[in-house]
């Protein structure tokens, strides 16, 4: 990319390890505030376990409330990591370098958070072992693999394991740097974490291949995860609004949209909080903005298809459902906010190069998108249950209770908290990627102009 400034390796190290080696005031403040919110959430979970799900506002036939909405949302966010780092690694995009780690770690944490939701949400959490672990051998009964509720754990477990290992592998060289920079017990800790990495050509070669090979392996998993989550809904023949064949790719691309936006948010925060202006530069936001436009357009295509094919059958239940989504309070308001926040406001802004390079604007739009995408999940999941079938007398509506809301709030706080704690122990930006980027930078002279290029060796 453009305006590349050569930074000596030692400066890169000290800059990017800033989070590990120093603890600014804002860090403590943020951690405490977030911890309080998380605490509130934990408290309401405890109360729910103690007194029963009656505390929530779910009822027949809307048996899944915003807890599941939030589950789907976090699964969506978790698609940021592999999307960014895998796609960009495989396409040798130079501007991936500062982005990858933050994206991957966001994946891991949001996936963990997502995983918790269905467990909290179960009627008898103390019997969850029955759900996805084999039990009761005398009767020889195992989980029913015909159930979407069993595909989910398998997919999420695979994805979580994969992406965590991905992060850890990429961390090894940075751990070596931390090892050489620290002393005392932290030195020992990092020595262990770096597995005695010394930077021989073989180790670097493997490190590079690992990035590409693991990306290639994780990409199909990442597609499968959200597809399988979407099939929780799409395979339900009884819920007209859910039973659409397009759900799998529609959810995946929606997830990518919200995930990449989340990465933009995190990057902006990193740039501001850790003062990494030299590393997270406007052109990175520029590139991400361009990517986001493409994703948003693709998502729009699927969104239109889903909606259109649903109404063009003119089935009464479908029409009733769409009527509810579009025109009935409060869904009409939510729908309007969703479509404006996720599409109509941000995309035209991203079209302008000047706006794409304005970090504040990108920060705000990225948050807007995620507000919109959260509401999208709400709009998909809740009204469809409320207008399940033609049996008008079971139609209903839903508004979340304070307990559900506090748990949702806690989930957001928890991701922030985990990220902050992570930044204390591991560098949020891959050091060696930065150095590599500088080694591999080159210039080509054409006539009077010298054009920035990059060394290519696949």
């Amino acid at each position, binding site marked *: 990319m453009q305006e590349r400034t050569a930074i000596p390796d030692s400066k890169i190290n000290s800059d990017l390890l800033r989070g590990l080696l120093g603890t600014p005031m804002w860090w403590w403040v943020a951690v405490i505030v977030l911890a309080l919110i998380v605490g509130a959430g934990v408290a309401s979970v405890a109360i729910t376990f103690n007194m029963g799900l009656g505390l929530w506002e779910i*009822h027949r036939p809307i048996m899944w409330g915003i807890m599941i909405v939030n589950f789907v949302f976090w699964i969506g966010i978790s698609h940021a990591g592999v999307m960014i780092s895998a796609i960009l690694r495989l396409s040798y995009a130079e501007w991936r370098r500062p982005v990858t780690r933050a994206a991957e770690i966001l994946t891991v944490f949001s996936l963990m958070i997502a995983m918790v939701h269905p467990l909290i949400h*179960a009627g*008898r959490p103390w019997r969850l072992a029955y759900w996805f672990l084999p039990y009761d051998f005398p009767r020889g009964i195992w*989980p*029913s693999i015909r159930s*979407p509720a069993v595909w989910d754990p398998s997919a999420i477990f695979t994805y979580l394991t994969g992406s965590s290992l991905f992060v850890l592998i990429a961390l090894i060289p940075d751990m070596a740097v931390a090892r050489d920079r620290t002393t005392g017990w932290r030195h020992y800790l990092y020595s262990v974490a770096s597995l005695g990495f010394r930077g021989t050509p073989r180790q670097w070669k493997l490190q590079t291949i690992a990035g590409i090979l693991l990306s290639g392996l994780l990409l199909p998993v990442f597609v499968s995860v959200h597809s399988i989550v979407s099939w929780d809904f799409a395979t339900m023949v009884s819920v007209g609004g859910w039973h659409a064949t397009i759900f799998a790719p529609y959810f995946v691309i929606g997830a990518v949209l919200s995930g990449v936006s989340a990465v933009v948010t995190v990057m902006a925060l990193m740039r501001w909080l850790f003062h990494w202006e030299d590393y997270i530069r406007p052109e990175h936001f520029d590139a991400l903005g361009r990517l986001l436009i493409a994703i948003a357009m693709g998502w729009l295509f699927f969104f239109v298809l889903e909606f259109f094919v649903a109404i063009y059958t003119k089935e*009464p239940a479908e029409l009733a459902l769409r009527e509810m989504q579009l025109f009935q309070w409060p869904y009409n308001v939510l729908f309007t906010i969703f479509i404006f926040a996720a599409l109509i406001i941000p995309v035209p802004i991203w079209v302008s190069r000047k706006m794409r390079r304005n970090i504040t604007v990108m920060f705000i739009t990225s948050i807007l998108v995620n507000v919109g995408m959260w509401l999208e999940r709400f709009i998909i999941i809740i009204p469809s249950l409320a207008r*399940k079938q033609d049996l008008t007398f079971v139609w209903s509506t839903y508004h979340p209770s304070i307990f559900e809301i506090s748990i949702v709030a806690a989930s957001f706080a928890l991701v922030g908290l985990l990220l902050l704690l992570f930044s204390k122990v591991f560098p949020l930006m891959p050091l060696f990627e930065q150095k590599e980027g500088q080694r591999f930078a080159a210039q080509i002279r054409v006539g009077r102009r010298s054009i920035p290029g990059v060394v290519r060796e696949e």
Partner: protein
Amino acid sequence: MVQEKKQQKWAMVVDVDRCIGCQACVVACQAENNIPLNTEEIFNQKRAIEWIRIERYWEGEYPNVKARFIPVLCQHCENAPCEPVCPVYATYHNSEGLNVQVYNRCVGTRFCQNNDPYAVRFFNFWEPVWPATLQNQLNPDVTVRSRGIMEKCTFCVQRIRRTTRTAKEQGRELKDGELAPACVQACPTSTLTFGDINDPKSKVAKLAKDKRHYRLLEKLGTEPNVIYLKKVDAHAKATSETH
């Protein structure tokens, strides 16, 4: 279909034409199956548990409006959408065509209720409590369900078991109409008929062939074992919106 011909397959016929909406079946079911009391508060929470319920809707324009009643209970579908989604086999299809619920397996994902088009599965949001005066009225043959699990109509499986056992003890075949779920027994207008639909001579089998017969949400292909008979009047379209 899962079971060979000769075996019993329990079914019910609901003659909508006869139903007067007296709710006797609801009360009987409540008493028979230890269903927790549906207080007004629980009703307002839309969490009332009624294994069989009378759905009432108005037909026609004021002044000449007619009240229509349709009893809705678990349809015990052959291809029950609610069964395969359960991760722990808490609900499955047994050899007598019943859609059974195994309470102690249930972990309460509430997936089955989502994929149940008739909304006839019920979740225990609260620990069930009975006033001391009612403690002794509980039916000893029926489990009291704890909080956090799903429950639903069983066609009074406890009665089916008891009657078949006595029949076997007396070494005779089960007679048609000999056994009836509480709701059928309580219905004053004999709207509900229960029996073995695999036995061509049974009342149910005959009624099921009536030209008025239809089943709820047939387009889903769930093949319920509860068959409805249309109202016989000019306003037969009253039920038309349900199929």
